[in-house]
């Protein structure tokens, strides 16, 4: 497994600038998630790394090998990059058995038949598909198909594993199990991997590092924890987690703190942008950081309970606080009493 260096990648598709000078590095044995909404360019970036398409400009290096360089005109096609890719649709060949699907990469590499057999069966064992080698893909469940796709991609020890929305084709229950399983597999195999996903939970769970893409640029990158607890832009803050947002104007700035105020309310929070006094701003706070109080408290607003939703493991309360809608999660049914909502200033980000 080698280091991947992607620098200054630019790509236009049909007049749209899909990627605008994207750069990142992937260290040995690391798993990076390319996270972003649809249209952010994440899948395009993965296809460029895979060699299924070529950038308009930039450079891609894997270990010692130059894969693409617009300046020197190097374009290594996909089949000579020695990568593994798990497709969103799995793309298993319907006319081949599980064994033949997985063995294809070894046959292309002219591995001896006895060795091929041994290796394929051992990988199928690793992904938990013993005894299914002679089935055809349509005889397998979605979860099993996904395992075949992974086995096919890793059987020939690729230098880098690429995963395109690997869990999106599974239903919700299965996805949770597969997430755990995939993380375990990657750790056990000690491979470097790039994983494209639009699901922040998937990114947080699987990756060592997350790259958040938006409109063809990297918005922010960091460990899952940094990304969740310390977003640097409003996009990063709102893309991750479930949030409350309040809009108002900056009333006062004191060092790293700022006061945001609306018609009948004011709150202190962390200033995270270059907004100045008097400018309109948005305050964002994770729902789970918002607290309910039964009496006035520091950095809190009086609120009227509008409606509640019962969601099984918790209750969802919806409040009107000074004309702004605020949600909180609570373990118990609502009571008839006055409410105050507290927004701890260290968790309230003002952009």
């Amino acid at each position, binding site marked *: 497994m080698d280091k991947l260096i992607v620098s200054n990648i630019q790509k236009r598709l049909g007049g749209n600038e899909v990627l605008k000078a994207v750069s990142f590095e992937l260290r040995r044995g690391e798993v990076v998630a390319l996270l972003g909404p649809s249209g952010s360019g994440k899948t395009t970036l993965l296809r460029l790394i*895979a*060699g*299924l*398409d*070529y950038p308009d400009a930039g450079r891609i290096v894997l270990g010692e090998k130059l894969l693409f360089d617009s300046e020197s005109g190097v*374009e290594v*096609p*996909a*089949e*000579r*990059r*020695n*990568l*593994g*890719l798990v*497709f*969103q*649709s799995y*793309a298993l*060949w*319907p*006319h081949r058995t599980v064994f033949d699907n997985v063995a*294809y*990469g070894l046959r*292309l*590499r002219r591995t001896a038949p006895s060795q091929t057999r041994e290796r394929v069966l051992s990988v199928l064992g690793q992904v938990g598909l013993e005894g299914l080698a002679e089935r055809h893909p349509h005889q397998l469940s979605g979860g099993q198909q996904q395992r075949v796709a992974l086995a*096919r*991609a890793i059987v*020939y020890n690729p230098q880098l594993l*690429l995963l395109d929305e690997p869990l999106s084709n599974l239903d919700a229950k299965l996805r949770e199990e597969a997430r755990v399983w995939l993380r375990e597999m990657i750790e056990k195999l000690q491979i470097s991997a790039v994983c494209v996903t639009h699901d922040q939970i998937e990114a947080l769970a699987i990756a060592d590092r997350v790259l958040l893409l938006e409109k063809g640029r990297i918005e922010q990158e960091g460990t899952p924890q940094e990304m969740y607890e310390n977003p640097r832009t409003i996009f990063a803050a709102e893309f991750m987690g479930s949030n409350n947002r309040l809009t108002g104007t900056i009333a006062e700035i004191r060092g790293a703190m700022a006061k945001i105020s609306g018609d009948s309310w004011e709150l202190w929070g962390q200033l995270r942008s270059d907004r100045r006094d008097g400018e309109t701003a948005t305050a964002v706070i994770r729902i789970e950081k918002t607290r309910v109080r039964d009496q006035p408290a520091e950095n809190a607003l009086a609120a009227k309970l509008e409606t509640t939703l019962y969601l099984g493991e918790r209750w969802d309360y919806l409040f009107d606080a000074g004309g702004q809608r605020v949600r909180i999660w609570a373990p118990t049914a609502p009571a008839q009493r006055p409410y105050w909502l507290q927004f701890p200033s260290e968790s309230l980000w003002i952009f």
Partner: protein
Amino acid sequence: MRHAPQWHRILAVLITGTAVMLPLAIIVYQSLLDAPFFQPSAKLSLSAFRFVLTDGDFHRAFATTAILATGMTAVAVPLGAILAFLLVRTDLPGRNWLEPVVLIPIFLSPVVIAFGYVVAAGPVGFFTLWAKQVVGSAPWNIYTLLSLTLIAGFTHIPYVFLYTSSALRALGADVEEAASIAGAGAARIALTVSLPMVRPAILYSAVLVFFLGFEIFGLALVLGDPGGLLVLSTYLYKLTNRLGVPSYQLMAVVAVIIIAIAFPLVYLQRRLMGIASRFVTVAGKGFAQRPLRLGRLRWIAFGGVLFWLAATVLLPLSGVFLRAFVSAWGEGVRLTEVLTLENFRELSDYPNLVRGITNTLGIAVIGGALAVAWYAIVGLATHRWQSPWAKVMDYLVMVPRGMPGLIAGLAFLWVFLFVKPLSPLRSTLFSVWLAYSVVWLAYGMRLISSALLQIQPELEEAAAIIGAPGARVTRDVTVPLIRFGLLGSWLLVFMIFVREYSTGVYLLGPGTEVIGSLIVSLWGTGAIDIVAALSVVNVLLVAAGLAVALRLGVRLHG
């Protein structure tokens, strides 16, 4: 997208381009000469255009063709659309077995159908004489423009059915259920919801039928001649002998005029196809569609469909089969006294007829396979190829569609005469095969590309990522995945090649006989017995192909 030059792909485009453009070029060139191109004295001139455009027969043929094309469109489009609605959306009795049956006219040779009408319902046809015994005089005359138009309209209903029915299938049942809940009956739903929603497909098939009307040859040759009716293609065919000397330049002019009318129509169809595919919006939810109840109309509609099938398939075919098993027929002849197998025995007396049958089989089975291989190579060469060359190929494929078989055959005859290195091949089956394959290029390419379209790109990309170079991806993934599509295409091309008659007409000679062109030329000599026997052989070959195709579950359209 690959940036490296793709020579094998470009080569496929160039070879196909030559095969397509050379005949067209030679027709245009010949039309601008004042004598056949092989005469040293031939000069560039517009005299041939002047001759044709001032010829009264040409004017009449043009007008007749326009009336015929318009009339048959007016007949085929509404009936075809209704037929599609009945079969796809309602509880019409027998809708399952009717589905393949209504497509039969597409696979029958028009010249066989026309011949069938003559012997079944002509002035001394079986049914005419039987009707005469009942009512006293012949109740119909099939040699008028009106009957020609009706017959042409009836035989082209399946084309309208084909496009309308597939559009109707793409329509969600919910739009009809909504009308049904609101209180509309089946007929009202058809006229106010379903058919209006598939308007682009109906419009497309209308243009197609009108276009086919301009190319009509076999029906007009057999049914138009006795009444002195000429259409453009039969006018062209008669020109051959009109001046006593080869009048290539005049034939070329008529060909150019037909092509000039056909091209805009082909282009229009292409544009409409784009619109039609954009129109497929309400792709049905996976619900099982409950057919609309026709109520009392059910049996009336069923009767209508049966009447159409009887008039279009049963009547002419029964005529052909009866005529093939009698030694003579006319007024006062009793059927039981003239029954014989002699006509079929007679076929074996003529080596050219035997050759015609074996050649037809060879060109349909082996030639069909080679044609499908060619179409597949071109299809694979342009598959997922983002290059201006692929666009060029797209347009090249359209060119033969604008050339009716009769003209394409003529053009290939000239190509083989004009291009000296090819001359030795003129009297071999290769010339016929090449002409057939080019004439049906667009049809074949559509079959291939619809098979290729069903492959998800990821299946091929997955092989590339794993390390398979382009040729291995084609061999290991693409071709295995379209195997069934290729088999189906082979069967369809087999039937089309057995059916084909006009393309071989000008290429007919010792060694290049095929059943279709033999029927056309023997019809001119009045050898009814042999024409009937050959027609039966032709129909049986098509039926065999059809049976295998249905058995294997091949879709009868691309």
